C-alpha cells in the first residue's frame, strides 16, 4: 500500500487505478499520514521550504517588537487592596508577583501563537501539497494526443447556454444554437 502511495505521488501509478488508494487514505489514518509524510519528504528534497529560514527567530523578533499590553497587570495596579499592605516587603512581593504573573502568560500566549501559525502553515502546505511554482517543475503530463472530433449532437449544450448567459455574442440574443430546444 505504501509503495503504491509512493508511486501515485510520482505519477507512476495510473489515476484510474488509484481509487482504492484514495478511499484508503480517506478512511485509514495511517495511509493519509504516509501520504502527508511522503509529500513532506518530497518538499524537503526539492528544497521547497514550507517556512522561511530562521522563521522562528524572525517571528520571535517581531513579537519582541510588539508593545506588550498587560491589561490584567493594570487592573491589578488599580486594585488598591494589593498596595494598601502596611508591610513594605510584602508590598514588593505582591508587586513582583503582579508583574511576573502576566509576563509568564504573555510568553505562553506567544508560544501558543507561534504553534498555531506554524501548524496552520504546515496544514496548508500538506493540504495543498504543491505550490504553483513546484507544479511548473513537476510538469504534469498534458494531453498532447490529437483529440477526436465531437459530433454536433455531443456538443455540451448546457455549457453553451451558460456561456451565452455570461458572455453573449451580439447574435446570441436572437439566434439560439440548433441543438438548443425551447
Amino acid at each position, binding site marked *: 500500500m505504501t509503495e503504491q502511495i509512493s508511486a501515485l505521488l510520482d505519477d507512476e501509478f495510473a489515476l484510474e487505478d488509484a481509487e482504492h488508494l484514495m478511499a484508503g487514505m480517506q478512511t485509514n489514518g495511517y495511509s493519509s499520514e504516509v501520504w502527508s509524510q511522503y509529500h513532506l519528504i518530497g518538499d524537503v528534497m526539492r528544497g521547497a521550504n514550507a517556512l522561511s529560514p530562521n522563521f522562528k527567530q524572525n517571528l520571535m523578533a517581531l513579537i519582541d517588537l510588539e508593545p506588550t499590553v498587560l491589561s490584567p497587570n493594570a487592573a491589578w495596579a488599580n486594585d488598591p487592596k494589593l498596595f494598601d499592605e502596611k508591610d513594605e516587603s510584602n508590598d514588593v512581593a505582591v508587586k513582583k508577583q503582579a508583574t511576573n504573573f502576566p509576563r509568564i502568560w504573555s510568553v505562553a500566549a506567544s508560544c501558543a501563537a507561534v504553534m498555531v501559525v506554524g501548524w496552520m502553515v504546515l496544514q496548508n502546505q500538506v493540504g495543498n501539497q504543491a505550490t504553483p511554482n513546484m507544479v511548473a517543475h513537476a510538469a*504534469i503530463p498534458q494531453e498532447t494526443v490529437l*483529440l477526436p472530433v465531437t459530433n*454536433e449532437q455531443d456538443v*455540451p449544450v448546457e455549457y453553451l447556454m451558460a*456561456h451565452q448567459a455570461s458572455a453573449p455574442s451580439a447574435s446570441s440574443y*436572437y*439566434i439560439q*444554437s*440548433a441543438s438548443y430546444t*425551447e
Partner: protein
Amino acid sequence: MRGFVLACLVASGLSGACQSVLAAADDEKWQILQKAALAAHALSYQGIFVCQSGQQSKSVQIKHFFDGQNEYARNVLLDGSPREVLSQGGDLIIYNPKNEKIVIEKRRGQNMFPAVLPVNLSIVKQSYTLRTGDIERVAGREAQILFLVPKDNLRYSYRFWIDTEYGLILKSVMFNGRNEMMDSISFTQVNLVNSVDLDWFKPQIDNKKNYVMEDEVPTQADFNPSPHWMLKDLPAGYYKVDQMLRVVQGKPLPVTHVVFSDGLASVSLFIEPVTNGIKPRSGHSVVGNTSFYSSVVGYLQVTVLGEVPEATVAAIANSVVFVK
C-alpha cells in the same frame, strides 16, 4: 561631406514625416471606430436589423434612447417566437416565450448590436489592425467600410459598415480564417429619433400567457484561494474578465466558469472535477460560429467554448494546469 549630412538629415526628416503621416492616418481610422463605439450608446435611433448566424436568420426591431444619462433599448424579434429584450444601462430583461409560458430572464448585457464594440478600444488595438475599405450603401445610408484584421490566427476578422454621417455601425460581419462568413448583423432600415417619451419602453404583455421568472441560474463569486488548477501561458491578447461558480444544468456541483475576452470575442472556460461513473469528455468541434474543446487535466474536466477559432479554445484548454 556637408551635402551628404544634409541629405541624410532631409531623408530622415522625410521618413519621420512619412511615419507621422501614416500614424495620423492610422489614428484617424481608429477614431472612426471609436466614434462608432460611442455612437451606439449616445444616439437615439430606431430601425430594423437582420441577424444571421449559421443557417438561421432573424429580423429584430430596435428602439434605442439616450437621455444624456441613461440608455434604454427595446429589441423585439419579428420572426419566430416574439422574444423581447429590454435593456436599461447594462441590465437586461428578456421576455422569452417558452411553450405556454413567458419566462422572464435577467442578464447583464454587453455588446448588443449596434453596440458591439467596447468603448475602450485599447485592448482591441493590441490584437487587431484596422484598414479602410470602400464607401457602400447600407439601409439606405452611406457607410464607410472598416476591416478589423487579427494580427494572428487566434481570432476571427470583422468588417464594419459605419454610417458616414451618424457614425453608427450599420452592419457588422464576422469572418473566419478562410474568409467564410460566420455571422452577420445588418440594419435594413434605421433613423434617428428626437422624441423624449418612454411610453414604448415596456414589453408587449400577452394576457393569455403566464409570466414566470426563470428558475434561478445562480452564480456566485469564486473565492477559492487555492483551487486545484492554475492558468499558464494564455493565448496572446486574451484576458480573464470574469470568474464565478455557476450551477450548470445536470451537474451535481457548481462549476467554475472563467470568461476571457480579447475586447471583441469571448471565450468561456468551465472546470469541474471528473465525476465518478460519468465518462470524461474529450474532443473538439465547431458548430455554427462556436468552437468547442473538452479535455481531462489531472482529475479535472475542462470545457472551453467561444466564438473564436478552434486554435484559441484549444490553447485556453491547454493553459489549464492541474495543481495537486
